[in-house]
């Protein structure tokens, strides 16, 4: 009889194990949207800069090749938008209807051209789409604003320094303004930054 008890113990535990795994598998839902690209690949794409379109480049394309997408809010969109553009705000990209639309664009070989208030605005939507695996998305490098309540699109010089910083600083230094009182603060102590290890520490040695 002792033998029997033991059999029970091991069999029951094994069956329980099987049961837990089965239930877990059955209740498991696959995540709906999954990033296709890892951060490394995304970073490389970002640096390559070939996801940016200017207005003139847009003009040289035929309208059957692309679909303009306004990623601003619906409110802004109704106030004014580029002709032929459809509205999908960044917030709603993940909704299934919109994802399907992007899938269709991939199938029909069209470029999804995103624009927003400025390239920075469109960049968020673009980064989301690119990481989801939509390589056909591009950013239209424009600013949109209203002049006399009229919708205006203008080219935007991306990441261009507005002034020559070093020069301006040089000039600013040599042309003392007003009083020079508390400004005698020449050498700041070199800030030595020692970073303690991040909290997500690597699990260490086994044995």
């Amino acid at each position, binding site marked *: 009889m002792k033998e029997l008890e033991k059999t029970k113990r091991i069999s029951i535990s094994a069956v329980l194990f099987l049961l837990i795994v089965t239930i877990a598998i059955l209740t498991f839902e696959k*995540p709906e*949207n999954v990033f296709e690209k890892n951060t490394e690949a*995304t970073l490389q794409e970002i640096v390559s800069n070939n996801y940016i379109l200017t207005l003139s480049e847009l003009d040289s394309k035929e309208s059957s090749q692309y679909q303009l997408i306004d990623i601003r809010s619906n409110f802004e969109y109704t106030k004014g938008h580029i002709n032929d553009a459809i509205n999908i705000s*960044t917030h709603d990209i993940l909704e299934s209807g919109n994802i399907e639309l992007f899938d269709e664009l991939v199938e029909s070989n069209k470029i999804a051209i995103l624009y927003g208030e400025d390239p920075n605005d469109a960049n968020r939507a673009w980064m989301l789409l690119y990481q989801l695996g939509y390589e056909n998305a591009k950013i239209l490098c424009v600013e949109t604003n209203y002049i006399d309540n009229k919708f205006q699109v203008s080219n935007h010089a*991306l*990441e261009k*320094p507005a002034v020559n910083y070093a020069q301006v600083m040089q000039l*600013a*230094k040599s042309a003392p*303004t007003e009083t020079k009182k508390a400004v005698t603060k020449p050498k700041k102590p070199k800030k030595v930054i020692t970073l303690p290890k991040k909290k997500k520490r690597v699990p260490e040695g086994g044995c």
Partner: protein
Amino acid sequence: MSKKYKLKRLLVRRYQILAAILFILAAGLVLLPKYKKNEGIAPDQFVKNIISSERYISTDLLADRLVNQDPTVLLIDTRSEQEFNDYALPNAINIPLKDLLNEDFDGYINQDVYDIILYSNENFYADQAWIISSRLGYTNLYVLKGGLNEWFDTIINPKLPDETMPQEAFDLYSFRKAAGMYFGVGMVKSEVKKVTKSKPVKKVVTIKKKKKRVPEGGC
């Protein structure tokens, strides 16, 4: 009798049954439909993060923190090395966007001690760096709203407000003016060169990281 007989039969077979269970579980792993794993956070959370404007810090706020020598601020310049050498904010560290995921810099962006403030000429590159880091779940990262352009517009060359403007505008102006002086406007003495600054700092981190892993190897 039959009950006992059944049990006995089960007893004889018990190891076969257990073996079968193990086999099924292992086969299950092979047969389960595979799906691609997310690296970092899930897309829905990602969208929430990128839409939120909490990550932006205004130039005024940054200037205030720098003037008060807030020890928790760490500036990171995401522009190229050349641009960084030309001009950079005081005490900034240069991590060009393309090297963001470089292991040497991991200690900087993946930490929870400093408030890391990313900047570039505008906030386009800085924002991209932020978005990538946010996908990896890194925290305490901020973006300088408007970048250096905004910095020069507001802190270095603040505009004199119109007389019709409220008092606050004038207060802001005088703060900016003072801050501008702090950052070098009207200073005759040459400022400390920043170029050499980043180098020794970098080393501190890499050495630390290496030291941390090795000793645990042995048994």
